[in-house]
C-alpha cells in the first residue's frame, strides 16, 4: 500500500531541493565571476 503523503513529500521536497541547490550554485557562480573579474580589473589598474 503506497503512502501517498510520503510520496508527495519525496517528489515535492526532492524537486524543490534540486532546484534550490542549483539556484544556489548559479548564485555562487555569478557572484564568484563578478568578484574574480573585479580582482582582475584592480590588478590591471594597479
Amino acid at each position, binding site marked *: 500500500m503506497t503512502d501517498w503523503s510520503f510520496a508527495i513529500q*519525496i517528489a515535492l521536497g526532492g524537486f524543490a531541493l*534540486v532546484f534550490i541547490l*542549483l539556484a544556489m550554485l548559479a548564485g555562487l557562480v*555569478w557572484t564568484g565571476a563578478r568578484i*574574480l573579474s573585479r580582482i582582475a580589473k584592480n590588478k590591471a589598474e594597479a
Partner: protein
Amino acid sequence: MFGLLESGFQHLYWGNVLMLAVGGLLIYLAIAKKMEPLLLVPIGFGIILVNLPLGGMMDYQMQLESPSSGTVVSIDQEEGTRFDRDTILITLDTGPIESPVFGRMEASMVAVGDRIEEGDVVAQLITQEQTNQEEYPTTPIGLLSRIFKYGVMWQILPPLMFLCLGAMTDFGPMLANPKTLLLGAAAQFGVYLAFFLALIAGFSLPEACSIGIIGGAEGPTTIYVTSVLAPHIIGATAVACYSYMALVPVILPPIIKLLTTKEERKIYMKPQLRPVSKVEKILFPLIATIVVILFVPSSAPLMGCFMVGNLFRECGVTERLSNTAQTGLVDTLTIFLTLAIGASMPAENFLQPRTLLILVLGVVAFASAAGAGVLLAKLMNVFSKEKINPMIGAAGVSAVPMSARVVQVLGQKENPRNFLLMHAMGPNVAGAIGAAIAGGVFLGILG
C-alpha cells in the same frame, strides 16, 4: 546423442529466443544505425550471453533453507531441471517448500524420509535473479555475475564512470551563463513525474525512484540508484536510459515544436559567450562538491567522483590523470559495466509486463524533462530583457552532448544565423549535476 540433451537446448525456451533477438536488435541498432555503439554493443552481447542456457556467466549459487520443520515426503524437482519462481521444489509433511527465485536445482541436500528443522539447507540452487541479499543471499559463480556483484552492486563501477564523465565535461558554457543551471534543474521535473506515474502504475517506492531517475538521462546515476534501491529491475532501467539517450534526436524535436512558436524558435542568441577564467573552472568543482554534499550527503559518491574528474581536467597539473580518465579508464569501465548490465536481463526477469511499463515510463520521463526545461526557459524570457531561445531548455535532458546537438540542429533550421550549441551545453551539463543531486535525494530518503 553427443550430449545434446545435456546442452543448452534442453533448457532453451521461447523467452530465451526472444531475448536473443532483442540482444541482436540492440547490436544492429548500434552497428548499422550508429546508435550509442559503445554502450549498445556490449549491452546487446551481454543479453545474448545470459540467455544462452547453462553458459553460467551470470549464475549465482543460492542455498535454499527450509521455512519450517518436517519430514521430507517428496523431492519434486530433479537436479538440473529448470523451474520458475514459486515452484514447489520439496514437499514436507508440514507443507511445500517453494523456490523464491527462478533457476535450476544444482543439488538436493535431503532425501525422502529425512527429518529437517527450520533453517536447514535443503537444496543448492543456481539462479540468474538479482535477489534481496539480506533475505536470500547468493554467491556469484560466473564471470559476469562476479563483475555485477562486486562492480555494480558494491557501487564501484557507476561512480567511477561518473568520474570519467566529469573528466570529459567542460563546464565553461554553463559558467559563462549560470542561469542555465536553472534549466538543468527544471529538467529534473521528468524524474519526479515518472516517479509519481510509476507509483500509480503499482510499483513500490524504491522501484518508482529507480524508474524516475531514468529521467535524469544519466546512465551511471540510473545504474547506481537502481543497484541500491531496486536491483531486480536494473536491466530494464539501464536499457531504457541508454536507449532513450540514443533516441534523443527522435524524442526532443516533437516536444520542442509542441511547446514553442516559430518566432520563439527563431530567437537569436549571440554566439560569443563570456570568457570563463581558469580560476572559475578550478573553483567550480570544489565549491559545487562542498555545497551539494553538505546539503545532500548521499550524493557524495556521484557528485564527488563527477567533480574530482572535472578537477583533473581543469586544474592543468593532472593531465595524465585526466587523459587516463577520458580514454583507457572510461573504456575499461564501459566494457565491464555494460556487459554486466546486459547480462542482468535473462528472459525470466525481463519479459514481464512491468518491463514494458518501465520502458514507457522512461520515455515519459525524458519527454517531460525536455518539456519542463523549455517551459522554464519561456518563463525566464518573461522576466528577462535579453531573451534566451527556449529550445535550449530541452538540453537540460543531460544526454551530453546529444541533446545540445539536437537543439543546435533545430536552431539552425529555424534561423541559419543561430549557433546554439554552446548555449545549449550549459543546461546540458547542468542537467548532469541535477541528476546526481536527484539520485542522491532518493538514496538519502530510501537507501
